[in-house]
């Protein structure tokens, strides 16, 4: 994860999700953990014909 702090700052601004300075370190810490968890998924090659299984019935 190159710079989680910058990502958190920009993404919260984009989402209109104001982050008080009090919460910011905890959110950055949690997002850094998520990024490490995401590596396990993003590193795993999936065939193109594997699709998500949405439960949407028109």
């Amino acid at each position: 994860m190159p710079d989680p702090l910058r990502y958190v700052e920009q993404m919260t601004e984009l989402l209109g999700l104001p982050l008080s300075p009090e919460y910011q370190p905890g959110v950055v810490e949690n997002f850094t953990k998520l990024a490490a968890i995401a590596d396990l998924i993003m590193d795993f090659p999936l065939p193109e014909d594997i699709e998500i299984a949405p439960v949407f019935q028109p």
Partner: protein
Amino acid sequence: MTPVAVDATQIATVIRGQEVSALAVVASSLARIASYNQSLNCFTTVMADSALAAAKQIDQALANGQNPGPLAGVPFAVKNLFDVEGLPTLAGSKINGSRPPARQDATAVAALKQAGAILIGTLNMDEYAYGFVTENAHYGVTHNPHNFSRVAGGSSGGSAAAVAAGLVPLTLGSDTNGSIRVPAALCGVFGFKPTYGRLSRAGTALFSSSFDHIGPFATSVRDIATVFDLLQGADPRDPVCTHRPPEPCLPHLDQGIGGLRIAIAADYFAQNAAPEALAVVEQVAQALRVTRQVTLPESHRARAAAFLITTSEGANLHLADLKTRPQDFDPATRDRFLAGALTPSSWYLQAQRFRSWYRDQVREIFQTVDVILAPTTPFSAPAIGQDKILINGTEMAPRAQLGWFTQPLSFIGLPVLSVPIHRPNDLPLGVQLIAAPYNEALILRVAAVLEAQGIVSAPVVTPEVL
């Protein structure tokens, strides 16, 4: 001497036979709650007046020769994310406390009442079900009845502890990543998470809809089967609820396990666990004469994908409140929800596609096996507030680690029963009995055999009042 559990089936039998009145049973439940709830903190609302009134109606119906149903007069309670008419649905939060009261009961609550059961109240949980410990900043910690200094587990901690302490014989909870199975194991009771979509979630506060399930806690296998059978059936109020016809399990409980192919989950499901958590799996395997092992591939990635999907969906549900009133969240969930709200869509979608991949792999495994055994939790109940635990020399965070063995299974919606193993002078542990989707009956047959052998049981514990 631990008193033998009186299960819901037995209570209903004596009430229907008019040996004991429903009023006396409900009054006894309320008295036990009055004695112990202040120390245990299971209930967030006790509905004494309506429960006593409902009990009188059951007794009157019986006096008139009517049949009030299979759960006649049985006291029950529900995790406070189930809608109960007249109460705000807290879902463990302060925020929801100021919302208007629910206008009707959740489908599952209505079904149990229809069967004659009597709602006693609502139960404590982690805020918005995002936790494995039930250490709630707004409503307090739920204590483990076996040792008050330990957590009850979560997020359905109140539901598990209330049954373990004999406050009520039957409760409902919800399970997204392990929230029924984990507290059931730590409190030493049965906790059942049926197949995803099998039971209606209508009228329950969602957490992460891709994985949200509901299910019962009880002290006997027949009670679990009875409640499961009563709650089955299509429900247009829950878009995920299956249209398959109900498949009653209670009539098949005594069929035994002849011909069933049973195996122990290996690799991932034998890692990062205290020796005693694996020992109880071995104990169950020996009782069933099982030695075969199977591997569910890439289960560590399944857990990772479950994390990503849960945090994204959960954060999205609460985004408006996260924007406007983050200070009103429990500090234990707030930063995780805020971080989850920032999840890139590629992570979420890749995790959802991985879910299909993992499901396909596990489907293949179930071609050659019927029931799989795995630990429920990697260790017994940690101390309240404990933030580090040593497992095989490695330091871990107990709160997240409690879901190690449960998350990959709810991730693909498999039916799982956590069966309780009681250890002399030690805290209870659980073993997961896992089957292919919609094969709940096989799980319950295996559990019935283990129960008959005395390997699994849920004796009610009388807590020493603080």
